[in-house]
């Protein structure tokens, strides 16, 4: 895997006193029934990668969609890039959303557009010249090792390839926050590792803060105990006992956040649900 960047990393190392990129305070939401999320509070600091764990149906995807305002909370406060968005009008949310990149569970590629137009969607809206679009799309596709799919339609791609194109679409605009909704869900182990390697690569090359939703522990652990080696062009295992200090964990149980901490704290947790989940 080459470390060919989409463009040179531009974001400098985050200032120590920079505020959180995302901050949830006592957020609750329900849809015609019992609450999906209750009093959820957490934050994502600049340069931090957070992994949201939990079994299916506990509200992980809902939480992710709350971050960029695709859902509105019933109660509580959500800050994105320092701006309160829980009651922000939809028109004002669009500029904020362009600063985030989101990878949906099944990719959510536009099936009537080619891979080129999917990846370039945001650039096309901004009327970037065609030559520049082509060049940036090729760079983004090279990053996910799918340059040959440039002219193809999503229907002719495999599930894993669609996720990688979705990752390229999320990366191309050099977002200030990345949101991954179960990026490996339903994929075979080899393809899952390829996707996680891309996320590790993005984390270690660009240091973009991110939140990855998953119910697969092995993906979370790979993310935490590997780093991307630009010389080898692939991810490598960290020395035994070492983990990535900027990768931390959250865990949801029935809409409540029951864990917020490092991998070390996670495996040492005495919470019954966490123990059961880990086992």
């Amino acid at each position, binding site marked *: 895997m080459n470390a060919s960047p989409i463009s040179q990393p531009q974001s400098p190392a985050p200032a120590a006193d920079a505020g959180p990129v995302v901050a949830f305070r006592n957020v609750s939401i329900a849809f015609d029934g019992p609450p999906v999320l209750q009093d959820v509070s957490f934050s994502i600091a600049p340069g931090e990668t957070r992994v949201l764990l939990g079994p299916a149906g506990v509200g992980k995807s809902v939480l992710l969609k709350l971050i960029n305002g*695709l859902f509105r909370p019933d109660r509580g406060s959500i800050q994105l890039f320092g701006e309160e968005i829980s009651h922000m009008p939809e028109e004002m949310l669009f500029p904020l*959303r362009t600063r985030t990149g989101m990878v949906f*569970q099944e990719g959510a590629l536009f099936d009537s557009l080619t891979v080129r137009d999917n990846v370039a969607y945001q650039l096309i809206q901004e009327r970037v010249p065609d030559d520049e679009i082509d060049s940036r799309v090729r760079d983004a596709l090279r990053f996910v090792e799918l340059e040959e799919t440039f002219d193809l339609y999503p229907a002719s791609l495999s599930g894993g390839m669609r996720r990688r194109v979705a990752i390229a*679409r999320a990366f191309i605009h050099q977002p200030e926050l990345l949101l991954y909704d179960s990026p490996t869900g339903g994929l075979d182990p080899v393809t899952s590792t390829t996707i996680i390697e891309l996320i590790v690569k993005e984390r270690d090359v660009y240091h973009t803060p991110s939140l990855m939703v998953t119910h697969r522990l092995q993906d979370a652990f790979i993310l935490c105990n590997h780093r991307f080696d630009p010389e080898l062009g692939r991810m490598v295992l960290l020395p035994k006992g070492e983990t990535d200090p900027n990768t931390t964990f959250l865990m949801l149980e029935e809409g409540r956040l029951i864990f917020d901490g490092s991998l070390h704290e996670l495996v040492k947790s005495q919470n019954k649900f966490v123990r059961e989940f880990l086992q």
Partner: protein
Amino acid sequence: MALDPIEKAAKNIVLTVQDYSLFAYRAFLNLWRPPIYWPEFLVQADIIGVGSLSIVVLSGLSTGGVLALQSAATLSAFGATAVTGQFVSLTMIRELGPVLTGVMVSGRNASSMASELGSMVVTEQIDAMRALGVDPMRKLVTPRIFSSIVMLFFLTIVADACGILGGAFVTVFMNHQNGTQYLDMAWEHLHYPDIVQGLVKPLFFGYILSSIGCFYGMRTSGGTEGVGRATIQAVVSASVLIIFVDFLLTQVLLRLLP
């Protein structure tokens, strides 16, 4: 307890009407505010306008022909077969042309809008569009509504012309009447208020069929089954609402343009 399902259904109806009103209001405002996505408008104008041309031509010809057949049979009892042309042209232009075109186009396009947008909703493409900072109301809904209004206006003119031609064909070749007399009567008794009435209606019908198709598409839930349900609801609601609004519009227009 026995009234619970009725109460729930009533609440659902009120909620749907409220949601549609807000949706239609937003869609209407967007028609006048930039950005207007012109390439999308042209694509939709082609799908809605050119794509519906054949069914509008066929239904216009048939309806005009049937009107001529039926009216000639009735008018002959009073010795007034000469006014067949007047009867066909006024009925087509004031009433049947706009309504028939509205219902036919809604059957074809409200359903396709609901199923297309519904599929995009259930596969998270609409959410993806919002996440990419693009407003689906402006990108997807406004071009469909704008092009439906414009194209239904022209399709109605085509349907009117085809109806009069269909009537002429039946009058000459089946009823063996004078074609010149038919066309003279059709033309002479046609006044500006009749034409205005016939051309105001499609503006409303185009808005109704497209806003309802998009509304049901955008609120689709429940996977592929939900897409099918949204499609049926869109066609039924659009057709019924077109006929009901036609009744209201006719009353208003008859007062304004007697």
